């Protein structure tokens, strides 16, 4: 295994789904259900059984719109406000209207949702305004349940293939993708009528403070390949400057407390043990207050559970140490830290791009369509803000159904054979060198530069230095990188995605000359929100081989937001009582 082999084969399909994590399996499943005759292929860099953000399951739904607890209108309003108004509401409203059907469908797959003694859904309040959090008692089984459905519907699964570049037809339509086997370096051309990108967040962008390249909040496989592929295919990317930054346990990539421990009475505290934020729901505004407290004399910040009864802590541990990040208990054991005894130190994560938690993603409309005909996207990488796991499932379903209908009306587009030859040359170039820089060193340097220059607070001159230094790394990637086996080749291709995402992050951050979304886009030399000039999306795209950015108007709201409600998320800091 791992030696580099020659090889090129070609297959054809109606719907090609790239990424087998959360949105991808649902997209493939729904496409096949809607049209059983369609040829649906699910391509995955790892193995669909255990890939993506929910490789080990998920503790619950963060954004369930359950009848009787919330309405699609309320949810759409909350997310619009949480995202500082920059929100096309149609995709959010569509998600909110459809997600309860998806909950019931997941239930039919065997995934349970917590109910009260009366048989009602046990929905918790974590957000600033409404109640949307619903625990999943057997959340560790979610991948297995999905996999069973894929097998039943006979979706064709190709594991250990990494997509590297999308293919487009002469008229700009999507025509398929080029992929490389991560264990043999053999190429596969997948011609397709439609492609759905579901490759997750760009989570390997910043370097975790531990210095361990793989200790990222997001699954470390999520290197932003989809962002890079969409960019090179000419698709628009929305609000890339609205980074993802998360509050985590210091040195461990486990999320803090908002959704699991919060409803039991745990909270985020400063070193004095006092609350300083009104609401633990993850928003840029909340992260700004978190950052301020970290930097203040009352820092650092802690997760406080030691005021809770030991049995309550046990209940919390039973979730936190079992699902999503099950090695968490071991981390605390090593450190000798126990939630019952002391507050647990927290910190902010490295930066990433992600719409699942914030709003940086490939631009999509309410049918999950990107700006490239035939190209769809769903999940963490598509621009529906704060859409989380249930958003990935729901928008994946929307994408799969629309794509398979579209595929029924069109032929498989032709592509330029020279594009494949050029891509093979690009991919294999580092394997032709006997000497040079290995991908892990290039990656370390690129991500260290992201931390030094691109993470907020954002300073114009620093961003520009960062761009120049990252260009030097790219020059090394193009001319001096050496790769010795096919596993390293996968890493090399991931570094290429990481550099593309870093370039986009810097470019988009410089484009928006205001501050918005709290810490996510805190530009020190433009400290105010500027509604007059910047109440709009920024859309980044590749034109004539160069990166460009333009403004795009926010679509008129479907659910009106009252003037008095607009800044609800700006009031995160607990006010001092007299």
């Amino acid at each position, binding site marked *: 295994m791992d030696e580099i082999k020659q090889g090129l084969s070609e297959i054809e399909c109606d719907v090609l789904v790239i990424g087998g994590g959360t949105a991808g399996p649902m997209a493939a499943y729904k496409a096949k259900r809607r049209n059983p005759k369609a040829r649906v292929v699910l391509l995955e860099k790892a*193995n669909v059984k*255990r890939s993506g953000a929910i*490789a080990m399951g998920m503790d619950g739904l963060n954004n369930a719109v359950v009848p009787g607890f919330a309405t699609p209108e309320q949810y759409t309003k909350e997310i619009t406000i949480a995202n500082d108004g920059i929100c096309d509401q149609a995709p959010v409203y569509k998600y909110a209207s459809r997600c309860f059907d998806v909950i019931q469908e997941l239930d039919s797959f065997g995934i349970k949702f917590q109910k009260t003694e009366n048989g009602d859904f046990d929905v918790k309040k974590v957000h600033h305004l409404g109640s949307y959090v619903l625990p999943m008692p057997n959340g560790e089984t979610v991948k297995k349940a999905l996999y069973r459905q894929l097998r039943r519907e006979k979706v064709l699964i190709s594991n*250990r293939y990494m997509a590297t570049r999308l293919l487009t037809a002469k008229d700009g339509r999507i025509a398929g993708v080029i992929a490389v086997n991560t264990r043999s370096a053999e190429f596969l051309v997948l011609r397709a009528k439609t492609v759905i990108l579901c490759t997750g967040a760009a989570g390997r962008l910043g370097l975790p403070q531990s210095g361990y390249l793989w200790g990222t909040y997001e699954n470390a*496989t999520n290197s932003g390949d989809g962002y890079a592929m969409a960019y090179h295919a000419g698709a628009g990317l929305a609000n890339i400057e609205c980074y993802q930054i998360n509050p985590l346990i210091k040195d*461990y990539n486990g999320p803090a407390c908002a959704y699991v421990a919060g409803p039991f009475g745990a909270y985020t505290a400063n070193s004095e043990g006092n609350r300083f934020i009104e609401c633990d729901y993850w928003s840029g505004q909340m992260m700004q207050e978190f950052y301020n407290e970290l930097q203040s004399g009352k820092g650092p910040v802690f997760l406080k559970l030691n005021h809770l009864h030991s049995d309550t802590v046990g209940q919390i541990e039973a979730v936190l140490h079992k699902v999503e990040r099950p*090695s968490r208990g071991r981390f605390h054991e*090593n450190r000798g830290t126990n939630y019952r005894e002391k507050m647990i130190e927290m910190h902010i994560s490295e930066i990433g791009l992600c719409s699942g938690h914030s709003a940086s993603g490939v631009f999509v409309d309410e049918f999950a369509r990107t700006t490239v005909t035939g190209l769809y996207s769903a999940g963490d990488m598509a621009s529906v803000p704060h859409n989380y796991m249930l958003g990935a499932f729901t928008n994946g379903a929307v994408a799969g159904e629309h794509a398979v209908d579209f595929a029924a009306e069109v032929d498989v587009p032709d592509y330029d054979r020279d594009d494949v030859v050029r891509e093979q040359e690009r991919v294999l170039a580092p394997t032709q060198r006997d000497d040079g820089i290995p991908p892990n060193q290039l990656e370390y340097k690129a991500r260290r530069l992201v931390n030094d220059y691109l993470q907020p607070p954002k300073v114009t001159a620093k961003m520009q230095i960062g761009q120049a230094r990252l260009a030097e790394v790219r020059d090394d990637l193009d001319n001096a990188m050496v790769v010795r086996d096919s596993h390293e080749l996968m890493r090399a291709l991931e570094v290429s995605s990481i550099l593309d995402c870093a370039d986009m992050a810097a470019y988009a951050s410089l484009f928006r000359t205001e501050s918005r979304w709290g810490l996510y886009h805190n530009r020190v030399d433009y400290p105010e929100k500027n509604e007059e000039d910047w109440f709009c999306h920024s859309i980044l795209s590749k034109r004539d081989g160069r990166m460009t950015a333009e403004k795009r108007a926010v679509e008129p709201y479907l659910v009106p937001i009252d003037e008095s409600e607009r800044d609800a998320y700006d009031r995160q800091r607990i006010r001092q009582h007299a």
Partner: protein
Amino acid sequence: MPIAYAPTTVPVVVDDVKCIADKGCTVCVDVCPLDVLRISDLTGKAYMKYDECWYCMPCETDCPTGAVTVNIPYLLR
């Protein structure tokens, strides 16, 4: 310039006595999202070849004989 190896203590440990990779089992290698495990040509047992671990635990959870242990990588401990 020659390429040197930097020594590292790896987080995933396999108990060779319990591991049945030599009987044809490849579960841990198959499920690892980062694809860092391999079967040794020398011993026929699974081992961590690349120190690129997200300590996510499918390898340990899915191992049919309980041979795999995931430790927290040293830099995070």
